[in-house]
């Protein structure tokens, strides 16, 4: 088992690795892990012939692997696949994957991660709602305690496919955030000013902390006695720094700092 390429998915994501291996006309197995799940993509003379991730096989497995932004990859030379589940050209696979990633970006603007919890919405506005069978299957597994990843496992769907279904169900209005009712009320009352700075801050912090971000921004600004509508760059920087210290995961905290520091520097 000879291994000749390896690295971190933080630096190089799955589609880029596929491109590199394809250009090099490589044969073998690309092993990927995000720390929890693992996947494999098999190459033959630079063509992708098979992919597997959890219960998923074929191109769907590649879509799933393409979403991973952390973890590791290793390429094992001359480890052929016994099966062929993919007969698309690499360029077509990559183009489809890009479309899928764009969709996922849209989804993650509403759903922070596969760990998010949702419950059935008791007050459905529309009189009649039509659901597809896969949407029913997901809806039947939602209980306010199971995460999207749990539901994906129960339904034997891919996590990103399940996130797509959740996105649709949230848009239709049959699901709601599973946070306790009183917290939801508090959050509804948080109305942050709609400025370019606050919107960027909200977006970056939501990526790190989820939907509770507006509440944290408001609370932190109060603690620091900062007027969110102020144009004072020192105050903005102080707010960003304090918020970054409230993000428990260091990697996410640095990501938040990185995006907001760039924003701040462009303003100075």
């Amino acid at each position, binding site marked *: 088992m000879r291994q000749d390429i390896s690295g971190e998915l933080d630096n190089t994501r799955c589609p880029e690795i596929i491109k590199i291996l394809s250009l090099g006309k490589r044969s073998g197995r690309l092993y990927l892990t995000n720390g929890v799940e693992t996947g494999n993509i098999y190459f033959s003379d630079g063509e992708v012939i098979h992919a597997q991730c959890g219960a998923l096989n074929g191109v769907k497995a590649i879509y799933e692997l393409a979403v991973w932004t952390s973890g590791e990859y290793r390429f094992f030379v001359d480890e052929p696949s016994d099966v062929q589940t993919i007969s698309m050209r690499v360029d077509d696979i990559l183009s489809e994957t890009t479309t899928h990633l764009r969709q996922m970006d849209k989804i993650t603007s509403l759903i922070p991660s596969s760990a998010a919890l949702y419950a059935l919405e008791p007050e459905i506005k529309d009189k009649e709602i039509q659901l597809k069978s896969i949407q029913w299957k997901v809806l039947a597994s939602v209980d306010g305690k199971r995460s999207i990843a749990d539901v994906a496992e129960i339904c034997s769907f891919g996590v990103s496919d399940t996130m797509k279904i959740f996105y649709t169900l949230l848009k239709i209005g049959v699901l709601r955030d599973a946070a306790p009712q009183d917290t939801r009320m508090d959050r509804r009352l948080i109305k942050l000013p709609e400025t370019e700075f606050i919107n960027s801050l909200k977006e970056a912090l939501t990526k790190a902390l989820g939907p509770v971000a507006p509440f944290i921004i408001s609370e932190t600004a109060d603690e620091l006695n900062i007027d969110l509508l102020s144009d004072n*760059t*020192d105050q903005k*920087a*102080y707010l*960003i*720094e304090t918020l*970054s210290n409230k993000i428990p995961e260091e990697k996410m905290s*640095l990501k938040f*700092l*990185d995006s*907001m*520091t760039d924003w*701040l*520097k462009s303003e*100075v």
Partner: protein
Amino acid sequence: MQISGVHGYIVVQGKSMQIKLPSKHKFSGARDRLWPLYKALTDGDQRPGNTVEIFLDDMLITVFLAGTTMLMVLSSLLVNHALLRMTGKLIIANMNKEKQ
């Protein structure tokens, strides 16, 4: 480190020291005086955090530490302190990542 008010920086990694300061800056020739400071600051038992701010009469020295790597930023006292700390934190994190 393109922040208004920053004079320059000094990077120390193990036995190497790189000074990026204007030649007339009073710290540009302070190599010998910086080693004891580096040794004292990289001793983890002596300090609780990873960022140290030293306020002089006319200058602010902000030191970022990660293991045996030290980034020392020299700036005016009127610099945007929070922006400087955030930028330094990002730089030292990247330096540490590259080192690993």
